[in-house]
């Protein structure tokens, strides 16, 4: 199975390379790109709001110190150059001199210092800048980040939508923690990115326009970006097909992806989501009931047929995933999966002391994080029935109710999609760190605790040598796969869709559309 996917991936990678080189001819200037947001955006300020819907407009409105190419290499953006000291405790950013905000005010190191403060206080990803003690501003174009410990994850955390530099003169008019509810988060937004805000109509669209004083000469190529908000995937598919939309990202419905792949005018690619790192998984609460026994968790993994999930549910659109790290990440170390084996599963359950009584070994519940994974949940229910485990599907009508259940460990199993967000320190550690047990949704909700895993993560977080870091994460992944607090089945198949004849240089780096699209153009 894995070979097929590897093969597929190489094939698409080749196709996109060819595509890129073919497009490499002169980008044209001008035009309006019509694109789409798949759910309703409510806050355009990516410094205080996470999520990919905020990320797309956010990364156009606000610039960050770095950007990444498709090979995970950092590239200059607001920072012309940067250096990390020998001891890894000082990171110096040399900012471009000509960066201006959309209101004409020059961008300075004070804005960088201010933004770090705002992000630390408001952004949900605390691990991004936790080791940053202070930001010194020796001059207007130099920002020096002082760290309490080496923090290799900082590089990715300074790119994409994660470190939006926001203007102090606008957002600094109140308490730092109030920026989260600042009125200019969704109207009259001012950043230094390639596009400025024209109009944001809640539930309808976000319209951006070329910022003529953008600090990179000649960019962006587009005059205007119209982001329509269409929440129905079928409606989006029709709009791609009939040309109403030029481009869209984060399409994840297998059926729709395969349909769009058959449309001649469209290119559909899974490239460019490595740093977003979306993983579908079956989380198991290790703190209570039968699931506290690792044998029961393994038995469940053996009974859930990955092959069925990949073939039938994901229709061949997803990649295999065996650990908590996304397969596109440089830190990924594939592990042996749990191939379907009902006998082994039954034997493990017997061994763990759960024999079949009156046709049932045990009753478990399963929750799900969002409607898109309901088929998986229904599948788990049917699959576990084959090893005599009764499963009841629990649906929470609203997000807070579900989040509370997860955050307080009030569940047996849960199917969810969780993102890596660049470096493992940001999006992976939170799931396995024993000091982060049941601290709200998307924490270590499984209550998993392993001293060696904690130790490995602590070492990897401060290891500045890439090869050593990879080795640490390899051991970490082996343990996780073996103890299955989370059964990893597949990546969420995010795809970018664009009109081949119209869109040049679509964003297929590592951040999806959570990155500036100043190089995208209309043919």
């Amino acid at each position, binding site marked *: 199975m894995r070979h097929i996917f590897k093969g597929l991936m190489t094939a698409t990678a080749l196709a996109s390379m060819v595509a890129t080189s073919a497009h490499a001819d002169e980008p044209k200037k001008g035009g309006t790109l019509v694109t789409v947001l798949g759910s309703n955006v409510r806050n355009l300020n990516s410094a205080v709001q996470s999520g990919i819907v905020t990320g797309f407009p956010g990364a156009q409105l606000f610039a960050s110190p770095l950007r990444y190419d498709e090979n995970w290499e950092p590239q200059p953006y607001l920072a012309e150059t940067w250096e990390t000291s020998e001891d890894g405790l000082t990171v110096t950013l040399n900012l471009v001199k000509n960066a201006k905000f959309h209101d004409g005010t020059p961008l300075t190191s004070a804005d960088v210092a201010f933004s770090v403060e705002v992000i630390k206080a408001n952004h949900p990803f605390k691990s991004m800048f936790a080791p940053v003690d202070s930001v010194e501003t020796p001059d207007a174009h130099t920002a020096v980040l002082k760290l309490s410990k080496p923090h290799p994850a900082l590089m990715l955390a300074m790119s994409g939508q994660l470190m939006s530099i926001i203007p102090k003169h606008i957002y600094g008019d109140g308490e730092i923690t109030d920026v989260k509810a600042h009125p200019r988060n*969704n109207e009259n937004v001012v950043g230094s990115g390639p596009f400025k805000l024209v109009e944001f*109509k*809640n539930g309808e669209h976000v319209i951006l326009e070329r910022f003529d004083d953008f600090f990179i000469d000649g960019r962006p190529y587009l005059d205007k970006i119209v982001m329509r908000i269409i929440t129905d995937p079928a*409606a989006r598919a029709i709009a791609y097909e*009939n040309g*109403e939309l030029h481009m869209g990202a984060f399409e994840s419905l297998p059926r729709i992806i395969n349909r769009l792949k058959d449309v001649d005018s469209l290119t559909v690619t899974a490239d460019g989501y490595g740093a977003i790192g979306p993983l579908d998984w079956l989380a198991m609460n290790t703190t209570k009931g039968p699931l506290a026994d690792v044998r029961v968790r393994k038995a469940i993994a053996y009974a859930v047929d990955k092959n069925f999930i990949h073939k039938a549910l994901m229709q061949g659109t997803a990649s295999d995933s065996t650990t908590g790290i996304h397969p596109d990440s440089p830190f990924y170390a594939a592990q042996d999966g749990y191939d379907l084996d009902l006998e082994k599963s039954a034997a493990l359950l017997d061994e763990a002391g759960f024999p079949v009584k009156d046709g049932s070994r045990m009753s478990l519940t399963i929750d799900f994080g969002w409607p898109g994974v309901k088929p998986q949940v229904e599948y788990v229910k049917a699959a576990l029935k084959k090893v005599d485990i009764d499963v009841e599907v629990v649906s929470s009508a*609203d997000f807070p109710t579900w989040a509370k259940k997860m955050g307080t460990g009030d569940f047996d199993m849960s199917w969810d999609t969780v993102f890596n967000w660049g470096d493992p320190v940001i999006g992976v550690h939170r799931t396995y760190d024993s000091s982060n047990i049941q601290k709200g949704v998307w924490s270590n909700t499984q209550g998993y605790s392993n001293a060696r895993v904690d130790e490995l993560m602590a070492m990897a977080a401060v290891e500045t040598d890439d090869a050593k870091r990879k080795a640490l994460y390899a051991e970490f992944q082996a343990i996780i796969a073996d103890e299955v607090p989370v059964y990893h089945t597949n990546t969420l198949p995010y795809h970018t869709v664009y009109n081949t004849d119209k869109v040049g240089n679509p964003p297929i780096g590592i951040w999806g559309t959570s990155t500036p699209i100043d190089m995208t153009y209309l043919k």
Partner: protein
Amino acid sequence: MIFLQTLLVRSVYAAILLLAVLVLNFSMMHLAPGDVADTIAQANGGADAEVLAAIRAEYGLDQPFLVQLGRYIGNVLQGNLGYSFYYREPVTELIMQRIPATLLLVFSAQILALLIGVFLGVVSAQNPNGMTSHFVTFIALFGYSAPVFWTGILLLIGFSLQFQWFPVAGMRDVTIEGGFFVKTWDVIVHLILPMITLASVFLALYSRLTRATMLEQLRTDYVRTAYAKGVPHRKVVYQHALKNALSPVITLAGLQFSAVISGAVLVEAVFSWPGLGTLAFTSILARDTPTILGILFFSALVVIVGNLLTDLAQKLVDPRIGGKG
């Protein structure tokens, strides 16, 4: 004068109804497990007891129920529906952004349903066993029996995908450049499918009722007398009979406003129409209590205003009908 008096009485009455709506909704939200503080905490990734207490104090959730209710009603009276912690915007502003779309959909569908429904009813009543009559019966039964969202999906597949005659989603194409007429036309093009979908349900009701009342009217003595006096057929039908037959149809239309809004919620979901229904749905999924309360309040307001307008329309059609309606 009587007209103004009626309006005044009705308004006072509407205000009392709205107050009752507020109290009921607020109590219901209060009874539900979990409170706003919980929700806010969860939306921010969880919180400990201390933070929860701080949020409760900030939002006045530590006060007794009646105090909270009183404060909420006081705020609403001042036009303040509270602050959405999900959208981080005042609820009144949020609703004001969305309500034009819903009003457009609801009223255009009602008017379309009334116009076509009454027309079909009148035509079929003149020949109760003819083809038109059977056609009306069929349309009426279809409109009533088909789930409205299903009708919408079928129309969407048919007319937006198979024959790409209409756009698939939304209320306007923001990329269109042009003057007022171009933009208005664009909205109309987007409106057609959702409007037809929503109207189909009510068209059914109105055409049936019109047909029935017209049949009654055509049998009355005064219509027979009119015929006997040699008044032309058309005049009898459209001036004498229809005038009397309209009144119950308009009454029915007035009673349907709440149902039309319910239908609109589903139609908005199918066509991604940026109205109150889609806002309500996302707010419910996020348990954005202030917004949910605000939407329930506003929808009740729309129903009441709709009823009032129906009363007025009825007076225009038939001035004999008394003050209380």
